[in-house]
């Protein structure tokens, strides 16, 4: 391997291991930064009838209609409030643009592979299927969410399945 190629490999590895850290209540979560398109405030969401509670509705993102999902409701957190600090992370997964509502975005972290531990078997709310693992950084614990798997999962009802119940 030439020196240049190895540098490129290191750079790309480092890039793919950057995570955007956000908070839901007191918990800290993180998503792969490459999936994040932008971060914006929570405003002007049009409600959609007959959908699960955590789907807040749709909003206008510069002319594109984007669904907004509240992860706090999805994960059954208490004290769901919408204020000036409420933030929407717009992610781009599976050729779709989806906004997820979180309590706040704190920072961008680089995690090396040895800082990522396999996720333990959780309860029902957040199956370990949706997790890339647990990131430990000093005394902080970050839940690394596989946002693509989470959002395209059937129970999110974001993607049309051929057999929707009548």
């Amino acid at each position, binding site marked *: 391997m030439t020196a240049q190629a190895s540098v490129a490999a290191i750079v790309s590895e480092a890039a793919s291991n950057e995570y955007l850290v956000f908070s839901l209540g007191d918990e800290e979560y993180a998503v792969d930064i490459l999936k994040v398109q932008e971060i914006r405030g929570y405003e002007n969401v049009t409600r959609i*009838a007959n959908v699960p509670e955590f789907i807040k509705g749709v909003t206008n993102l*510069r002319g*594109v*209609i984007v669904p907004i999902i509240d992860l706090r409701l999805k994960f059954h957190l208490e004290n769901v409030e919408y204020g000036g600090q409420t933030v929407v992370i717009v992610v781009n997964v599976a050729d*779709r*643009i989806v906004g997820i509502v979180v309590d706040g975005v704190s920072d961008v972290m680089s995690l090396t592979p040895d800082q990522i531990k396999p996720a333990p078997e959780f309860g029902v709310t957040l199956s370990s299927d949706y997790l890339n693992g647990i990131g430990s950084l000093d005394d902080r614990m970050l839940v690394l969410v596989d946002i693509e798997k989470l959002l395209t999962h059937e129970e999110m009802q974001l*993607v049309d399945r051929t057999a929707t119940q009548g």
Partner: protein
Amino acid sequence: MLQETTHILENLLDYTRRGELTLRRDIVDTFLETKDMLHDQLDAYRNGNEPDAEAFERICRILQQIAQDELGLRNAVSAAAEKPAAAPTEAAKPEPEPTPKAEAEASGDSETAASGTRQLTITLLGVSAKDRELLVDELKHFGDIGAQSGDEARFQVTLESSESQSDIEAVLCFIIEPEQLQIEASAASANADVESGAAEPVQASTTTAAESAGESTGDSAPGSATATTAAKPPAAGGAKAKAAAKAKSKGGESGTIRVPVDKVDQIINLVGELIITQSMLEQTASEMDIVSHGPLVNGMNLLQRNARDLQEAVMSVRMMPMDYVFSRFPRLVRDLADKLGKDVELVTEGKSTELDKSLIERIIDPLTHLVRNSLDHGLESPEKREAAGKSPTGRLTLSAQHQGGNILIEVIDDGAGLSRDRILAKARSNGLTIPDNISDDDVWQMIFAPGFSTAEQVSDVSGRGVGMDVVKRNIQEMGGHVEIMSQPGKGTNTRIVLPLTLAILDGMSIRCGKETFLLPLNAVLESLQPLAEDIYSMAGDDQVLKVRDEYLPIITLHHALDIPGAKTTVTEAIAVIVQGEGRRYALLVDDLIGQQQVVVKNLETNYRRVPGISAATILGDGSVALILDIADLHRLDRRKSQQRHKAKHHHSVEVQPA
């Protein structure tokens, strides 16, 4: 093989154009058959199969027969005489612009553009006398042939032509290989090289051909066919020459560009955004004091006008003329009429009427079906027509025209018309109950029911009873509707009304609770404030509204879509009478806001289909409003009331998800 057939056909068509060959029905039949066979040949080669040699030989024989019979020894106008007088030679003239002539020339177009001509010396190496003759014939199409000299090994022709060298080369390469050909732009002195004495025998033979052009062109049809077999250029060389000729002809069409549809869609989206931003600004500007902000208000007005113009211009990019659809019907009608033994004249009107590209592609199938129906069931056989005192030739009209914001496409035949009795009889035998005084319109609508066919015999053209309901469904999916008007003995007129484009919708905005929705304006019939005495209950839950002797089911929008804070008293609400997929009902909403044109945004791009909602749009304040799907809303309400019903009767403790 392909070459031979195309050459014969080309030549024949050329004579037709020059008026030397009068078209008859059987000739046209043969031509069309040839075209089909060429298709087959091409497909065969593409798939690496051998084409059907037998069919090919048969066609060639027929074509040659026609060529001989029709043209025979008739004296045709000399091709050379038709040419415009050659302009003074300008040897140094740069190459004329490439024009789409190359192809036209290949088929023997003799009308040379009288731009600059110059003298070319064409040298043919190792070409037999027979082929030489043929090549000289071809060259005559390019301009005036000068001196000719040489023998089989080396033969020189001087030509005064305005065509570029590569064009001539491309055409000649159909017959000989590129290596056998040399073309040089020569000075006038080139003629001096030609020794008249030595050249005489050859010249004599070729000039006879040139002078008695009548005979030679007449014979050249079969002649060229045999000549090409003899020469048989290798496929690669021929293909290259053809490609070059194609490229040339493309180069001339600089008036159009091909752009991927999604690029156009992106522009349309962006313009939509611009319009929304502009109306947001306008709203803000209208609250300002016009005296102190005069220039701003003026600027806003200008911006508004420009933005609207821009939107219109961009929308027109997606528009395509109806000719794209209509142009495929003459052949279909012809073939079908032959098959059914009917005499049909096809008239198309409004070919240049423009329609959105996505609609134009989707209208083809329904329209084809309607045309087939008209031919099979509508128009009668010539005998029956004569017996009914009509001209034996049936008339089928396809027309397209704008009507308000819609496009109206009509399929009109002057056939027997729909038979009310037969439809009713069929409906009864299908187990439908029919009121005695049913109107004609309602009867005609019955033929759109699935599985409905009054044809006594199922043919491979139509009559299976699956067509019309598919036609209707397709057209409804496009946001349009179908109407039928028919008079016994006079004919049937099927009218398809379509919106001009799917990207913009005329909507009626309504309010329910704090939420704003849009109803497609073409679904709205009227709106009224319901009176308590016009509301009747049915089976406890359901309510109907009496509107002018008609009882319409009531659907409450806030029930169907779980809208909080809506008006619950029926008499305070507004009833909008809507119609979708043939169902009519009264939709209860809180308020009407007004009519507006909106840009339709797909919900499924990033989300999924939502029951009762067809799409979304962005309002002037930047917020999203949902566009209601009238027919689906009805189904949604049905489901919901069934659930409510069940929940009530089973005393279920299940909590509905909000």
